[in-house]
């Protein structure tokens, strides 16, 4: 089949190709370099997305509160050996904290649930925060849990209500941030503080 464009057109195209091939090659190389340069950031983004999903998926369930799945008392030598601590039943709540809350509130499942939810959120600060995105997700969970705690006492006497609620907040924080290493680890996450938050108004995982 004869060339429909003819030799003249082919020559023009060849001419164009000769002129643009080097710029195109350089552009391509730059593009490849940029893509390679961006790969760590993209990987970081993917890791962040997975962590954020995991943080938001962390919810208290009735099994965490009913007392039938309590972990055994952790080995005293291991309790404070690491920042993360021991979580034998893998529910996101440190075992020593979980047992302390159950011991404090054996007959108050609702208060127990709210404190466990707050403990779970505080644990996330120690285990999942490595940038602003993850900090924001944990801060949202923590804020929800904090608001949930505010529902554990009647507001009929406001002064009394304030004292009890703040006491319960401080109680969980003292369980959770019980060593200097853990307090410092929590403080280190402050470098990632950033604005913005979700508008999840379902404060308590268990109502």
């Amino acid at each position, binding site marked *: 089949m004869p060339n429909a464009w003819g030799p003249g057109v082919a020559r023009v195209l060849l001419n164009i190709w000769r002129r643009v091939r080097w710029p195109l090659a350089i552009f391509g190389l730059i593009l490849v370099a940029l893509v390679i340069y961006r*790969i760590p950031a993209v990987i970081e983004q993917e890791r962040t997305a997975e962590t954020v999903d995991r943080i938001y998926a962390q919810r208290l369930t009735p099994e965490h509160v009913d007392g039938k799945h309590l972990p055994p008392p952790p080995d005293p030598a291991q309790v404070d050996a690491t920042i993360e601590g021991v979580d034998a039943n893998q529910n996101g709540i440190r075992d020593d904290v979980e047992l302390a809350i159950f011991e404090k509130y054996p007959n108050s499942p609702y208060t127990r649930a709210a404190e466990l939810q707050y403990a779970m959120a505080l644990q996330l600060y120690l285990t999942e925060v490595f940038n602003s995105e993850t900090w924001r997700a944990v801060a949202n969970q923590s804020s929800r849990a*904090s608001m949930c705690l505010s529902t554990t*006492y009647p507001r009929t*006497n406001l002064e009394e209500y*304030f004292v*009890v*609620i703040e006491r319960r907040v401080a109680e969980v924080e003292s369980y959770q941030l019980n060593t200097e290493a853990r307090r410092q680890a929590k403080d280190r996450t402050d470098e990632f*503080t950033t604005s913005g938050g979700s508008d999840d*108004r379902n404060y308590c995982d268990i109502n």
Partner: protein
Amino acid sequence: MTEIIVTLTRMRRTTAYLFALLIFFPGLTLAATCIQQGYTVIFVNGVLNDFEKAEDSKTELGRKIGGTFNGESVSIKLGHNQSHIAGLGDFAQSVGQIFDNPISYYDRDTILRQIHSEVTTRKVLLVGHSQGTFYTNELYSYLVDHGVPRESIAVYNLATPANRVAGGGAYLTSANDQLVLRVRQYAAAASAPGPLQSNILIPISAEESTKLFGGHSFSGAYLTGAAARIVRDIETALSGLKASGVSDSDGCFIPPPTTVSYKVQKVGFAALDPLAKTSVSVAAVTGKAVVTATQKASAAAAALAKTIGNALSSFGGKAKVSASTQGAAAASAVPQNPIPAPQATVSANITPSPVSAVVPAPPVPNTPIPAQAESQPISPPPAPDPVAVPAPIPAPFSIAPGFGGDGGASAASVVEESQPAPVVVVPLAVASPDDSALFGTSSVTVTGTTTSGFLVALAYGADTASTTADMNGDWSATLSLPEGVTAIGIVASDADGNTSDALTRNITVDTTPPDAPALVVDECSAFGSAYCEIATTTVNVSWSSVADALYYALTKNAAISATTTATTLQFVIDTNATTTFSVAAYDLAGNGATSADVSVYVYIPAPRPRPPVPGMMML
């Protein structure tokens, strides 16, 4: 490289799309839907509050307000008022704002951008503290001009140096607020509009009194001393909001555009703020070292002068006090801190009682309040006196006095002179049990908090008990209560006999167990005994319903197998073995009663092996 390709391949599609969106539309912000239901409370902090501190204040306010009001959800958000140039920028801005002529709208616009995606309800309440109150006023004006109906938004300001509250909102300013008092004096001297009159007297705690501007901090003064009043005022403000207009899918207001001026300021602050922060830190450390060295030198000089004086007196017989000794003594009597004492503004006779300190007056509308109209027995702030205005504060460790939320250098010796006499507050709270709690045991432990070392007395029936709060302020007392309802009265007291308000708990003790249920295995009913043999592995266990039983716990071979509110359960049990069942009924108080055991033996003979068929081939 292969790993990288695999990782890229595994990237979730949504992430990739979002990434692409953000690359091509870097200015893209996601607008939130604006709904009629619910409330959004925006807290705007004062200066020298970093984000974390402001976030903590917001969270604490949120817990106090609670998550619902009038059956609708309440969401608390932070409109972070950033500090610039280590507070100097804020100070300059505040001066402009006092004259209603701010230097820049950068911070206001930053807050608006920040909250744009977070405000999801039509009804909005802006709560400001300190310099944040200037911003809540500015935000109000902006928002009503950009999509928010006036009846849907209100402002409530705390510790405000401003002379108004936008939209006629309420405010709360303590007569003990040293910063507002100082601003009032400066404003009078400069013929500028002064802050609104104080309308409450909040006692200052010992910790707060050590701060340069005691009585001003959001958390340490206002939330600590007047939380109930603040919450009631906020609830009043919320109840006045109406969600007019329709729900909007483009957000609740139009955010300000990103202008070149805004970008320039952003870049400028991004460069200046960290530099200024570092400079202040270095200056603080250096200043502290200089002060310490000066103090040591002064002490050494005094000791040397004393030694010389003693030596001279031993030689001269009658002691002569040298000029240098007097100088050293005088020097040691002079406070090291050169900050002049602020003017006393609260007379000593207004020391309130712990309860009456927070005057339960209704929210004060935004109208000029004459001094005599104050609804409480406190002296009005002194008339502005240019002569009495303190000199500018040469604060070596704090650059700007500013309108801070919680910051400020320590100046205890100065502040003490201007504080009212210490107020004795006897706090008391009962952590457990809740009122109307039910116990299945006569031994009931009551726990709570008060001040460390305070005595807590409990009266119940004809008996009393007492305990002392530990070093953390925690206390507990174990009482032996009779069957039925007992009212417990609880009071805390200090060593001087000051007492708290009495709290009560009505506790019910119910140690009477319910009736024991009667259990049967249906397949054994023909046997009518506690033991039977059957030829089936599926058994139906049932029992009689018991009045007052909250639930039943079924035990199979000495282990709890199930808890249920039903009165029948089906089991598959082992063959050629005995299985023993029992069931316990539990009431609300946790008392239980267990049925008699019923044992079942399943006998299913094993099939006999068939004799081999003659002629069959084994493969």
